[in-house]
């Protein structure tokens, strides 16, 4: 080393530097571990938030397509068609406090125009969702025209619903009379409110989650396939990373114990299926096959869900082994994996495939406590 400084002086400096490093490393305050690598010089923050917002918009838009406004020949909105077989008429019946009634799709033409007050001042909103019991319970809700004063953390004041809805409605989508997605039902300090869609997306992208708006549900999510042709599986919850569910989103279940199933009763049959039950199903582009539900099948606690609008995109984590790579990456049960290596997780199957494909992947996780995290997961 050619240096103007003498060796003794250098040794003292090196010793001091070493001392600073050791002392600093020991005295470092233990902060909450952030799973976002500090040295990450890509615009991950911006990108991941935007992607989550896109996921949400796409998720709700997909479901919104199931609905269409029913127009009278005059062009006035008369009700909302909620499925291929059902409609909700926006006409006063006199029998209930709600000026709505369920009618068969075929009856939709007989719906009379809604009286004027229905559209003013805040308008009426329809919150539609099947009840957990599997009954075809489309719930119309009346919006009072006032905004809630209790949900102080929210930027947009949610609209107050005149009656408190059962907790099962949290997360249901609300549509206006033009068939547009108006918001999501939330429960907030003993009030039921409709949170506007803008606010829902903002909450998610700003990683603030009031419980109730974004309610992760247990079990499978299934909908009746059109034309009584079976039950379509939409989501399957993973309860353990080691568990491979027997059913995957995208599968269509056509029979339980060789009996053909369809419609609401089919969903109830499927939900009640115990381990050992034989299930006939086919996936897109594949022949019909039969499986026997194992003990680890994700159906045990399945809630017959019907059309569920409250679930988040992504896949929920059921269990994290302590000391595992997932635990070290900061993942916890109840978190939702939204993206793996930049790709959206659309189902538990896609999650498995994406995780298995490489040794180290970056996950974008919507944490149980509402934080949006990025976690690096290494397979061991």
């Amino acid at each position, binding site marked *: 080393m050619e240096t103007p400084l003498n060796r003794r002086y250098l040794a003292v400096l090196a010793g001091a530097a070493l001392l600073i490093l050791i002392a600093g490393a020991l005295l470092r305050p233990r902060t909450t571990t952030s799973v976002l690598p500090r*040295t990450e010089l890509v615009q991950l923050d911006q990108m991941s938030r935007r992607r989550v917002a896109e996921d949400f918009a796409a998720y709700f838009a997909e479901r919104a397509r199931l609905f269409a406004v029913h127009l009278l020949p005059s062009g006035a909105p008369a009700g909302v068609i909620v499925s291929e077989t059902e409609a909700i008429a926006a006409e006063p019946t006199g029998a209930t406090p709600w000026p709505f009634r369920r009618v068969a799709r075929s009856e939709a033409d007989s719906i009379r125009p809604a009286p004027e007050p229905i559209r003013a001042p805040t308008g009426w909103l329809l919150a539609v969702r099947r009840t957990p019991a599997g009954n075809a319970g489309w719930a119309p809700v009346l919006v009072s025209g006032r905004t809630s004063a209790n949900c102080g953390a929210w930027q947009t004041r949610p609209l107050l619903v005149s009656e408190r809805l059962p907790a099962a409605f949290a997360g249901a989508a609300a549509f206006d009379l033009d068939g547009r997605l108006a918001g999501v039902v939330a429960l907030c300090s003993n009030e039921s409110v409709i949170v506007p869609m803008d606010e829902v997306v903002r909450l998610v992208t700003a990683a603030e989650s009031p419980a109730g708006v974004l309610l992760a549900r247990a079990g499978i999510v299934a909908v009746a396939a059109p034309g009584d042709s079976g039950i379509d599986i939409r989501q399957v919850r993973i309860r353990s990373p080691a568990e491979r569910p027997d059913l995957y989103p995208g599968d269509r279940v056509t029979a339980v114990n060789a009996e053909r199933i369809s419609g609401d009763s089919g969903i109830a049959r499927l939900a009640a299926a115990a381990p050992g039950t034989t299930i006939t199903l086919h996936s897109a582009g594949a022949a019909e096959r039969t499986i026997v539900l194992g003990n680890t099948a994700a159906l045990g606690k399945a809630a017959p869900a019907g059309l569920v609008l409250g679930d988040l995109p992504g896949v929920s984590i059921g269990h994290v082994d302590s000391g595992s790579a997932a635990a070290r990456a900061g993942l916890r049960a109840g978190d939702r994996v939204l993206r793996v290596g930049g790709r959206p997780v659309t189902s538990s199957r896609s999650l498995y495939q994406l995780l298995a494909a490489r040794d180290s992947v970056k996950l974008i996780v919507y944490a149980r406590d509402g934080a949006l995290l990025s976690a690096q997961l290494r397979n061991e």
Partner: protein
Amino acid sequence: MNSLTAIGAILLLALLAGHLVKAMRVPEVTGYILAGVAVGPFGLGLVSHENVVSLSVFSEVALGLILFSIGSVFDLSRFREFGSHVLSVTFIESALAGGLVTAGMLVSGQRWQVAFLLGAIAIETAAASTLMVIRECDAAGPLTDTLTGIIAVNNILTLIAFSLVATSIDLHAAAGGVGGWSAAYRAIFPLIWQLAGSVALGFLVGLLLASWASHVTEHGELLILLAGCVLLCVGVASLLDLSPLVASLAVGATMVNLSGKSRGLFGALTRTDPPLYAIFFVIAGADLDLKLLGSLGVLGTIYVIGRASGKLVGARLGAVRSGATSEVRRFLGPAMLAQAGLAIGLIITTRERFPDLAPTITAVVLGAVTVFELIGPLATRMALTRSGEASARTDPAAAPG
């Protein structure tokens, strides 16, 4: 596309883009960045977000090497000549750029925390793109020397300013709540640790590099030694929550002062590292979203105008005050407009430490970085060319005939 295919495609694309823009007298760096924008997830999508993330390790290595190179300006024998001059210019341009942005944000009704954090980030001048343009132009002269010195001091100053603001915000929050000493300790510690710890780490790694380099004769071995030391430094810095940037600078500074081999080493590095930098800038471009330009908004415009005028006026004032030549006075400001790496790093830090302030800061800075990363290298090249410091080889205007 898997990572290897992506690297191959990125290298060839960078070469092609570099050739294309050269014909238009635009810096290669801009070509690389534009190529990145074109193929990135926000453009054609040929290079996915996943590729970008998996290649970010290259960015870290490249940034470490760039800062190591810049650290060589702290050669004490030379720094004494122009050190005070560099320091005074840096202080003036930083104070003006940061001050104008802060004032603009306060006037537009932003909270003081947001205004001061944005002011601190506005100080930064991109080390990587500026140095790459200097190298591409093969520039030499008083402007180039001043510019290189300023980049080094400027990045340290940015970090100090940001840490001071962050500490003040934490202390202010602690004063209004519980926590007392513990909260104050948590607030002040990062400020001292990031500077003293990073310099200590850089010095130790630099010492290792300098001692070992005197026993290494082959060019290849020297490169292995250098790569090992820089990677070690960046890795340990990340591990200990230190600043990889300051630590890499310190390695370069230690090396240049302790080893007679440093000139050869920096020369060898210049001949070997272009592929790494090509990947670095294409990735940087792939991360830019030109759509952000449309949503720059009032705050973004205040930031861009405040920072640009602060840099232009501040550099000129500083140069006049320190008695610099007329070329330096005229062209120093435009040469230091680029902004990227550290600013984006600081956004990530902001997100971790102040999640409630992060959305505004992220939107403003990312939009502004897109603007400055596109016009910055062009302005730097223009400044170097017109000041006559770019070599004839790269300066068509100066070419004979």
